[in-house]
């Protein structure tokens, strides 16, 4: 096939020389495709069964189902992109680069200098050739862009090197950590043995010396009393909160019933919608149930009774309460451990939820119930365990960090927590890589969160996340090579379309807007030699779009993209 077309080209070349008739809109390289058949006919490029007289090429009527007969007119512009066998209208653009123009822009009265600086897309005389001037400008811009690109690539390499260094350091750290984990593990084992021995002795002692049960009893009473106090205060807090909620709901109900929707006040609308939503989520008004109060009352009475009854024979043996608090001591060590963990978790839960006070004030709970020896053994083990666990955690974090790929060649690793900012329309916008985004008022210094880094994705030209990425690994998609875009309007050079997929960082969960959604930011990364926040705008309400420059996304050869983009701006200059 290649040989054949070379042959064809070879045959066509002298013919073209003899009769230089490259059809309009066709490059010299493809001119041979338009050589006539021997009988003066010509066959459509991908539909050879359709044959037309050679002279009908570019006759401004679409004959071929693949549009190949009209490379220099708009006659086949109604065909869809996938039906077309030609890349578009070829503009020589002497003085700049050749470009293909979509067929529907040929002969439409517009000089499409962005792609056809030679004006060949319109009838002669309509669009003077501006390649001499435009081409020069653009080549200059392109050179500058290439230069910037090279600097960007250099910057990327630095980032990569820095990342590699960071990984080296992490790996070095890892060896030390592994040793630490092993050592602490051994220590834990040793202390477990100590504890087991002490416990064995202790169990016998508990059974023999009921005296100590009295101590436990007192402890339990105190404990329960403390719990009751805590619960009471929790109930009070809750009651106040419920009352406040009811008042707030009352206010909202009033707002809902009386507001005027025609004011289009987003705040009010959002409040009403939120209230309605709240009502549907919590249909019944929050009432104060009596159970807890009753329980507290009952407890008081029962406890008193129990105390009285107990007063007589509390020294006879361990009471139920004592047994309850001390029961773990009777359990086999394996069970003991898990129960203790469970109780401590439950305790933690209560503390975290404000039912119990901080451990500092309640930690004395178990101090008296065990012998000093046992306690010490337990504590030693516990300390050793936590040291060991911490070491393990550090190691696992480190391993995860090492295993995580921060982009191709780990390029993003060193950007972590680096911040860039820009002043725009009265605000300073700051973005921290993999951190948070903020908007700070220059006037009053107040700061608003635009969200924290949540994910990133790769976007196609329309700003749509490319669906095709779903099946493949992410890093393949920081495009390393030009890929054909979806857009049909932007026919690039002969090599095909320019890939312009972009890396986008998504920041979410910023300060909620009046109308509901939380602020968020979409950050497009573009190639620059230094990190910087280039553009910010609020594309739709509370959704920010930022353009951030970084070397991390620079790739060899991608300056073409920037160049093409620059070229797209030339309308302004016309």
């Amino acid at each position, binding site marked *: 096939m290649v040989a054949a077309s070379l042959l064809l080209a070879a045959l066509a070349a002298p013919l073209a020389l003899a009769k230089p008739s490259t059809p309009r809109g066709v490059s010299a390289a493809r001119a041979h495709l338009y050589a006539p058949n021997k009988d003066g006919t010509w066959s459509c490029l991908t539909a050879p069964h359709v044959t037309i007289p050679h002279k009908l090429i570019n006759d*401004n*009527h679409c*004959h071929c189902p693949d549009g190949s007969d009209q490379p220099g007119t*708009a*006659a086949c*512009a*109604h065909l869809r992109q996938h039906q077309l066998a030609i890349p578009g209208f070829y503009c020589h653009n002497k003085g700049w680069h050749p470009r293909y123009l*979509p067929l*529907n*822009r040929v002969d*439409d*009265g*517009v000089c499409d200098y962005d792609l056809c600086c030679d004006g060949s897309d319109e009838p002669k005389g309509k669009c003077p050739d501006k390649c001499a001037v435009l081409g020069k400008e653009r080549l200059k811009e392109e050179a500058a862009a290439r230069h910037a690109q090279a600097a960007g690539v250099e910057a990327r390499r630095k980032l990569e090197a820095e990342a590699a260094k960071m990984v080296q350091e992490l790996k070095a750290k890892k060896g030390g950590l592994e040793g630490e984990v092993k050592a602490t593990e051994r220590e834990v084992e040793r202390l477990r043995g100590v504890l087991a021995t002490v416990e064995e002795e202790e169990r016998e002692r508990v059974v023999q010396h009921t005296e100590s049960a009295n101590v436990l009893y007192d402890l339990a009473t105190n404990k329960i009393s403390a719990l009751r106090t805590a619960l009471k205060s929790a109930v009070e807090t809750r009651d106040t909160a419920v009352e406040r909620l009811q008042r707030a709901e009352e206010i909202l109900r009033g707002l809902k019933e009386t507001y*005027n*929707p*025609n*004011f*289009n006040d987003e705040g009010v609308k959002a409040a009403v*919608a*939120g209230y*309605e*939503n709240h009502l549907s989520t919590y249909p019944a008004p929050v009432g104060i149930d009596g159970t807890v109060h009753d329980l507290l009352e009952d407890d008081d009475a029962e406890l008193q009774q129990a105390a009285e009854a107990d007063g007589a024979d509390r020294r006879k043996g361990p009471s139920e309460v004592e047994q309850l608090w001390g029961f773990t001591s009777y359990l086999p060590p394996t069970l003991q451990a898990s129960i203790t963990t469970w109780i401590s978790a439950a305790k933690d839960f209560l503390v975290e939820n404000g039912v119990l006070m901080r451990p500092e004030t309640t930690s004395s709970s178990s101090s008296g119930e065990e012998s000093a020896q046992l306690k010490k053994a337990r504590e030693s083990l516990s300390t050793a365990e936590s040291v060991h666990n911490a070491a393990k955690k550090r190691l696992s*974090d480190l391993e*995860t*960090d090492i*295993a*995580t790929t921060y982009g191709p060649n780990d390029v993003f690793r060193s950007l972590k927590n680096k911040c860039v900012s820009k002043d725009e*329309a009265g605000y300073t916008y700051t973005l921290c890589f*993999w951190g948070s985004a903020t908007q700070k008022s220059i006037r009053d210094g107040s700061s608003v969160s635009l969200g924290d*880094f*949540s*994910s*990133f*994705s790769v976007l196609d*030209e*329309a700003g*749509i*996340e*490319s*669906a095709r*990425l779903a099946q493949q690994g*992410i890093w393949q998609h920081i495009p390393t090579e030009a890929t054909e875009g*979806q*857009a*049909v*309007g*932007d026919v690039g050079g002969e090599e095909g379309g320019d890939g312009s997929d972009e890396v986008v960082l*998504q920041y*979410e*969960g910023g300060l*909620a807007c009046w*109308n*509901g959604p*939380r602020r968020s930011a979409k950050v497009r990364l573009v190639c620059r030699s230094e990190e910087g926040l280039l553009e910010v*705008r609020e*594309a*739709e*309400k509370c959704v920010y779009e930022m353009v951030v420059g970084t070397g991390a996304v620079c790739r060899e050869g991608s300056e073409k993209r920037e160049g093409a983009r620059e070229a797209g701006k030339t*309308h*302004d200059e016309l």
Partner: protein
Amino acid sequence: MRLQFGSDRPSGQSLAKLLTSTLLLLTTFDSVVAVKRENFKTCAQSGFCKRNRALADEAVAAGASWDPSYEIDTKSIRLGEGLFRANLEKTVEEGVKVELPIVISFLQNGGARVQVDEKRRQEGKIELRNDSKARKERYNEAAKWALVADPEIDEQADFNEKEGKVEVKWSVWQNDAVIEFKPFGVKFSRGGETHVILNERHLLNVEHWRPKPDGDDKCDSCWEETFGGNTDSKPRGPESIGMDITFPGYTHVYGIPEHASSMKLKETRGGDGQYTEPYRLYNSDVFEYETDSPMTLYGSIPFMQAHKKGFTVGVFWLNAAETWVDVTTRKDKKVTDTQTHWMSESGILDLFVFMGPNSQWLYKYYTELVGTTPIPPMFALGYHQCRWNYVSQDDVKQVDAMMDKFDIPYDVIWLDIEYTDGKAYFTWDPQTFSDPASMVSNLDYHKRKLVAIIDPHIKREQKDYTVVKELVDKSLAVKNKDGKDYDGWCWPGSSHWVDCFNVKAQDWWKAQFKFDKFKGTADNVHIWNDMNEPSVFNGPETTMPKDNIHHGDWEHRDVHNLYGMTFHEATYAAIKERNPKKPTRPFVLTRAFFAGSQRTAAMWTGDNEAKWEHLAQAVPMLLSQGIAGMPFAGADVGGFFGNPSKELLTRWYQAGAFYPFFRAHAHIDAKRREPYLVGEPYVSIIREAIKLRYSLLPALYTSFHRASWEGMPILRPMFLMFPDDEEALTIDDQFFFGDTGIIVKPVVEEGATTTKIWIPDDGIYYDYFDYTIQIGQGWGTINSPIEQIPILMRGGHIFPRKDRPRRSAELMKDDPYTIVIALSRVGAAAGVLYVDDGETFDYQNGQFLHKSFVYQSNKLTSKIVNNDPAKAKPYLKSISHVFVERVIIVGLPEGAVKEKKAKVTVGSKSWEAEIEFYEEHVGRASFAIVKNPKVPIGEEFEIELL
């Protein structure tokens, strides 16, 4: 698809956070969105509606014993010159009569005009309360604003006075009328068949002036009316008018927009599936309006058509005050009559009766009176890209570039209120629109336009804002009841409203649009007039107090429904006159409208929602607009409020491609939804829908031409084309597209893969895309997966197309035509083409091409039918390079194509063109394509199949 970064996220907690925020998002957008009904009056809350309805109830209750109190004073009758003039007397109580001068004009068009005034008010012999500065007369200037010309009176009308009545015969239609004296009533008939009866049920009610009695008055809400915390001082007391109009034998009435309701008007006094409230006409900014409701909306056209097999009539209740219309039916054995009851708060009674005899005549006669939609500039028929808001000039530039990048044609990008500096119109936000001139010229490079919003409320507190200063200094604003400049709230906060009832205000308004005043604008900037009901956030029913005072000392109550029209008319004039060197056709979009608005503006159906039911509601609403003579209408594609699903958005584009006015719009809280953002396959489907629109522009433009001279709608209901098809009378979810013979049935159902379509006659119909044949009157089924729009071509029609998709309409100007011929069963078809320069007024000077196409006996003949072809020469010369590139003939009879060649003849020259022929194949019609016949469109020609 979003990808998680690294492995240390998200923790359970952040997952919970994420879930919560997702929930929040969902609930925010799904949360209850509903109209606030309590902000708008029901009939019972509107004093005069309640009183007039009560009167109707009393009449029904009284039955035969109902004592009508209106009669003609026989001594006062004067006949002649086509007029019946007399005093109509209202007996208030024994011996006390109120004089109501009545004039009935008999018109050359076979219709009549009935005007009733009140002598005492006319003569100003009344006292106004509360030191009001208002005029004393009943408002009598609605005609001045609504009509283009006085109706032509048939001075030859033949009057025949008899005992207790006058019989009239008039017009070329030989219509008959009987005016009965006591009780008063008028019957309009033709050939012995009565079509319209006035005051048959004796609900005529003219609330005459009387001083406010001391003490308690039984008159409900007559002297003061409070609603939503606002009190109307009603200085003239009760002054409503009401009358019943019966259409005997008529089961279907249409029109009186604007309501989010079916095309066929429903009954309004209860019953299964009927309404309990009357249709209300009181231009209002109804926030988040609901579908299937007689509630008032942004505009009003008090024109109603009544249709029955064989006849169509109409009535035009020319009154600009708040108006309510009750519709009921009376079934008597086999005959069903439709009864209507019209009630207006103030003004004279001014009623036009149109005697058809069919829809086409009705449109002609009605629009002769109120004017037609002029031929719009071509760009206005392209696709409009709008959003509240494109936030900056860079944003505009980016959207513009993306549309090109994705090969989606569009003509106009829009700027909503945020482009202004603090909502002060005629200014630009210095931060975001620092250089509007280059933005505008950038758009012009591809012949695109900008439409900027300009509303009637003028911001009060704005530094260096000369507009408000001039408005106040020149005293051109609407006044409150105390004669001070009315101060209300709208987008900018505290504002004044320009009063375009004042000619001086109109002139001043025009001056604001000069390029040196509205800086940054140019010839390709056009205007959107929103909020012109007028919308006043803190006013009663979101509008102005009724006792506000307009130029001429008329109360706002008298002119409310006209306000919006005076405003957009002034804007239209401003755009037309801003560049005297090159006057081009203005494009103005208005939200509020009245009868006559069609002359200067297009309308859209206001703030709809991104819901399937709103997509479905759009077509009936647009059909009703056409029925009322204002066919240049559209609905926001995608739905204004909320976020449409991709499917809904796509279906909406497919429907919108056929709206006369085709604009996508979105609320500021909505997600971005420019068509290139939707993702595949939707982008491609939407692109195809928009390209389809562009390819049909020549046909659409031709239909607009027809609308401009005889008022025919662009979207035509089935019953307009097939008036005798009973089934078609209620079909309002499909339509004929102009003169093309194309039936479109937009898909408005989620997940639909097939669609039922009504085939209104026994002709042959072809699928638009693949020429599959559909035959036989009745319900047909068409496949309608997401990429397909159900469209049929009716055999017998020819329409023009341009198949080269360009970036904007103007760039298609020189492109060649495709002529599509859908043959009838007997192998014939006909059609028209109208084209002009698409932007100037030269067409008014004969610079256009109007062509007929007739196909019969295997031959297409195209003739120039300009009324003055010689005059058109300069234009025809200017299009001499525009050719026909192909002729597609669908449904050829066997043997029609023998040689696969066609003979093309222009004048004395002829040549041959090639034909591609496709035999009939499994349900698909045969078709032929005449390739490149090389005939200029501006020449008369013949193409004969050989």
